[in-house]
């Protein structure tokens, strides 16, 4: 098991949190890169939503405020609006997701990234996000709620 991930096992399901990411409660993560940040969805969100069939991503060049609708992810059982975890200008989108939306399921922290942006105020906004250690208890509570429904 890699140190990069914290894993929570619930029955046969293993939920992961990447220790290099910061998390918003609406289940998008953000990770600092050399130039800007990259944004994606959490393992919890992809697992509970099901196989992704359609993705809509923001336009390159558009500006998003924190918690703005940044895109949509649709599965056979649900449609989820994805909220931007930070404010900034979108510089790149992962267009592979249009042909291979299943990347969101198979590799949500890697090849399934959604978009890149240049953040407006990283220092202030990132302070309000959760690191992996803080996110995991939140995820555990959601797992309990979600899977005890079944």
């Amino acid at each position, binding site marked *: *098991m890699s*140190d990069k991930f*914290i*894993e*929570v*096992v*619930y*029955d*046969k*399901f*293993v939920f992961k949190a990447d220790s290099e990411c910061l998390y918003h409660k609406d289940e998008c993560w953000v990770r600092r890169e050399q130039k800007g940040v990259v944004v994606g969805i959490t393992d919890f969100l992809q697992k509970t939503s099901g196989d992704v069939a359609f993705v809509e991503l923001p336009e390159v060049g558009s500006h998003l405020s924190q918690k703005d609708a940044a895109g949509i992810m649709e599965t056979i059982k649900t449609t989820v609006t994805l909220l931007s975890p930070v404010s900034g200008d979108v510089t790149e989108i992962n267009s592979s997701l249009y042909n291979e939306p299943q990347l969101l399921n198979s590799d949500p922290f890697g090849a399934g990234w959604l978009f890149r942006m240049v953040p407006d105020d990283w220092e202030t906004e990132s302070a309000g996000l959760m690191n992996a250690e803080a996110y*995991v208890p939140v995820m*555990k509570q959601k*797992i*309990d709620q979600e*899977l*005890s429904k*079944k």
Partner: protein
Amino acid sequence: MLIQLGLKKVGIIPCNGEEICEGTITRFASRKVLDELRSGRTVTICLPLFTAGGTEERNFATVFPTITVDGCDKRCSQKSTERLSGKPVHSIVVSDVLKKCGIKTPSSRRRLTEKDQQAVDAVAEEIAKRVDEIQEGKV
């Protein structure tokens, strides 16, 4: 870092056999146990995913107790589970259950009728009984 959550559940592994109606019954009976009879106490293991290499399914079946539910005496689910993860605690064969209960085999593998529900219920009850035995430590 690994964190374990949840009660120790029982894994139900239906064969899903496509050729005969008993395979269809394994599916409906297993889901009935999962969704209604022993909700929150069981999980279903997807046999094709299990055999094709699904690590989560295989890991669960190695650690947790399992009940295989086969349509017929070929016992594909039981044999696959034994080979890939370990002996199931119980192995149920639908044709045996129906014979024991004096229930007529449904005529269609494609769609079960309301009358066929009796067969689903009988197998589901058998699975639920075995789940109880495992969780009460009687096995």
